[in-house]
């Protein structure tokens, strides 16, 4: 979904894909976001992101695993701005495994 006017970092090597270009391909797609602390995750439709990888998610679900009991709580959030500071990984597809 790269814009035709945008200059790629490696125009001669189509197999080279920058990390931010991969995330760009996920805009308006389902993603699965895993946070740094290891017990919090989000899924939802990625509407956009910025240079800090702050993410706008729609129809998001927050998953939080309690450290002691191991019990997982979920919370539905219709529209959120997720701070990029604590994001560890973004997985295209949005299915948790």
């Amino acid at each position, binding site marked *: 979904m790269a814009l035709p006017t945008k200059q790629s970092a490696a125009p001669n090597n189509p197999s080279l894909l920058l990390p931010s270009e991969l995330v760009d391909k996920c805009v308006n797609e389902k993603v699965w976001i895993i946070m740094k602390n290891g017990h919090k995750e989000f899924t939802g439709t990625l509407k956009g992101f910025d240079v800090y990888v702050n993410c706008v998610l729609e129809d998001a679900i927050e998953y939080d695993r309690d450290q002691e009991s191991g019990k997982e709580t979920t919370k539905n959030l219709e529209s*959120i701005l997720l701070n990029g500071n604590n994001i560890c990984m973004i997985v295209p597809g949005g299915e948790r495994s």
Partner: protein
Amino acid sequence: MEASTTTSASKTPADFLKSIRGKRVVVKLNSGVDYRGILACLDGYMNIAMEHTEEYVNGQLKNKYGDAFIRGNNVLYISLAK
């Protein structure tokens, strides 16, 4: 920032921040504490000023503040309240 020149379908963080001012929001901090209230104003650091703020710890109402300022580094997410 070229927030206004992005495609119509996508919504960048800058667009989101512009669209939620004056709305009811839930702000979750890294500590897990939730603040619900009306968003008065905010900036690119996610510093937030809120009105009619209610503080929820473990889902239970613990405190109410007329006005509150939240320093952006503590913010995990800002959610539009239903």
